[in-house]
């Protein structure tokens, strides 16, 4: 369960999150929609533990424990995952090497034994095949020269392998064609379970056709201004954010 409670955060003195509150229960898929610049990515980064933001109030709790005083790597080991809106290129580090380093770093923090190379390979190959990630991509430097869609698939592959208890997907649909959208949707759906929650940030209904949310929330100016069920996404698709943005001002 992820609880975000009256969160206030700023960067370089600029207030971006203004009393953001949202609870996503285990097994729930929540969607956040909202205009560009409303602070959706900022929310994702603050929850993930990126440096540079000043949290001036509120709390973020994963499965009841506050994350705010922990580093990004500790949050990951505690079960949090962020699929980036803009995944970074990591030159010189093959996807395979990166995945192995990530899995084992988390296992080590949790006091678990390292995954053996054959077990690791088996797991990666199986997950990659499902997501249409070619072997050749696993041998290349992570995200270097990958298309936008390939990068997004790689994010989902990482998520599938790291098995988080909670994941935020930040505009994972941007840059995906219709086929890739379905593959990514299937990847997420395969992870849906009663003890795992998701927060899906998106602009478009089309991703939510594949990953059907339980709740939909509208973010404007750094906080949630409207919450509802899946029908809210359809309404936003038709009418845009205008009414809610105006209401927030």
């Amino acid at each position: 369960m992820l609880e975000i409670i009256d969160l206030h955060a700023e960067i370089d003195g600029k207030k971006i999150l203004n009393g953001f509150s949202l609870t996503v229960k285990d097994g729930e898929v929540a969607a956040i929609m909202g205009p560009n610049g409303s602070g959706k990515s900022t929310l994702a980064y603050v929850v993930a533990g990126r440096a540079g933001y000043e949290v001036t109030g509120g709390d973020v709790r994963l499965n009841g424990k506050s994350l705010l005083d922990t580093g990004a790597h500790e949050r990951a080991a505690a079960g949090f995952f962020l699929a980036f809106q803009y995944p970074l290129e990591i030159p010189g580090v093959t996807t395979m090497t990166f995945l192995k380093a990530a899995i084992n770093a988390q296992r080590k923090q949790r006091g678990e034994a390292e995954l053996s190379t054959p077990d690791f390979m088996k797991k990666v190959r199986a997950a990659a095949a499902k997501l249409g990630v070619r072997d050749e991509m696993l041998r290349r430097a992570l995200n270097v020269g990958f298309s936008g869609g390939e990068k997004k698939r790689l994010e989902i592959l990482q998520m599938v392998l790291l098995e988080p208890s909670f994941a935020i997907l930040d505009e994972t649909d941007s840059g995906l064609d219709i086929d890739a959208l379905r593959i990514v949707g299937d990847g997420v759906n395969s992870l849906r379970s009663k003890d795992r929650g998701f927060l899906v940030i998106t602009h478009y209904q089309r991703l939510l056709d594949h990953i059907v949310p339980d709740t939909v929330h509208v973010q404007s100016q750094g906080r949630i201004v409207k919450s509802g069920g899946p029908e809210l996404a359809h309404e936003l698709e038709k009418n845009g954010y205008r009414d809610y943005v105006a209401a927030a001002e």
Partner: protein
Amino acid sequence: MSPQQSEGAARPVAEPVGAVISVLRNDAEKALADLFANSRALFVGSAEIAQRREAAFARFSRLGLPNRRVESWHYTDLRGAFKSALPLAAMPDAQARASVRARIEALRAADTQAVTRLVVLDGVFEVELSSSHLPEGLRVTPTCNALIAGDACAARAFAAGDLGQGDAAVALNEAFATGGVIIEVAAGAMIDHPVEIVFLSSGRAAHAIYSRSALLVGDGGVVRFFERRLTHGQQPIQRNETLFVDLGQKSIVRHVAVAEHEAKSAVDVATTLVCMAADAEFTSTSLQFGAGLRRRQIFARMDGPHARCSLRGVGLLRGDEHSDTTIVMEHVAPGCESRETFNHIVDNDATGIFQGKVTVAAQAQKTDGKMKSRAILLAEGAAMYNKPELEIFADDVTCGHGATCGSLDDNQLFYVQSRGIPKAEAEALLLEGFAGEVLDEIGNEQTRDALMDEVRAWLAQRGQK
């Protein structure tokens, strides 16, 4: 084709642009003049070689030791580092050989494949420490023997000095070098196993080492060539070693060079002279650690059309080490391709330098030259100087260069950490990737892995401090 026979070598040797004639000699320069005058008895070689030595030393005397006022040495003050001229290293004796035997054994133990290893100890080829069995197509001659016998290979090795564009350090090498090793690969020979020269300094006494070595590859010859520089003891040393790589038509040389860390008191100047005939291919990948003062200079000339030359390197520097990589790439024939890709990681108060100059003569149309130097600085006091230069006299060419310098990227670092990897490990992973990117181009996986192990060991030491 060796420069001796080539048209280009007939031109007068140019003094480096911006060279300032030093009128006032410092103690080291005076001592070098005495050393040269008093060592003539040691200078084996034909009358022509003797003449070259005199001319080289006269040139050196005019130029003096390279210093900041010489444009091509602006960032590396060799004159300042030469407090005095150390005496020439004595011929290694049994004791010197014994002291380094374990190092050679360690290299052998780490071999992942059969290697023909040739050891140049304190500037002298050591038959006892070197592989006794030579593969077919390979001829190995100690430089000293070749000089005494008047062997043509010695003449070629020394004539190659003209590729050095009048550089004062090359001149000094030419004046003093009597040792080294000359490797000849027969035309058409494909040498299966790598050939390695180990330039080893015993460090048993404060001394100067000058050697001239060569790899002469006949038309169509193919060889993997390793070069390793290391020092055993801790005594102050002044090393000035020159290696000539001559590539015949359609020959292929894959060169891998490792320069191990050297003591603060070490001054190490390693010059590589490269001459390429038509359709030859030279790839050179280096891993360079720091020293008190280290300069690696490569003068490459693409004499024949459609030659391809790729020089890549990783520099890992820490403490107050100083490491300078200076490259002059001369395109004199049409349709050649050159690449220079260098990545440096500089920590603490160390200084890295990359100077790359690509010159394209008027007749060298369709030249394709690209140069890239990047550096990651890990500390406030770390410095990197990048100086790319293009000098183009042909109109139909594609040439470009790029240089970047900065700290580790925060966004990449956060991305890696967000996957569960702690900060120190995330940094190491990114740095490993930064080095690996360049070393990945080594075709042979075992060789690449061995170099990556050295990179990882260096990074692990960083983590421990």
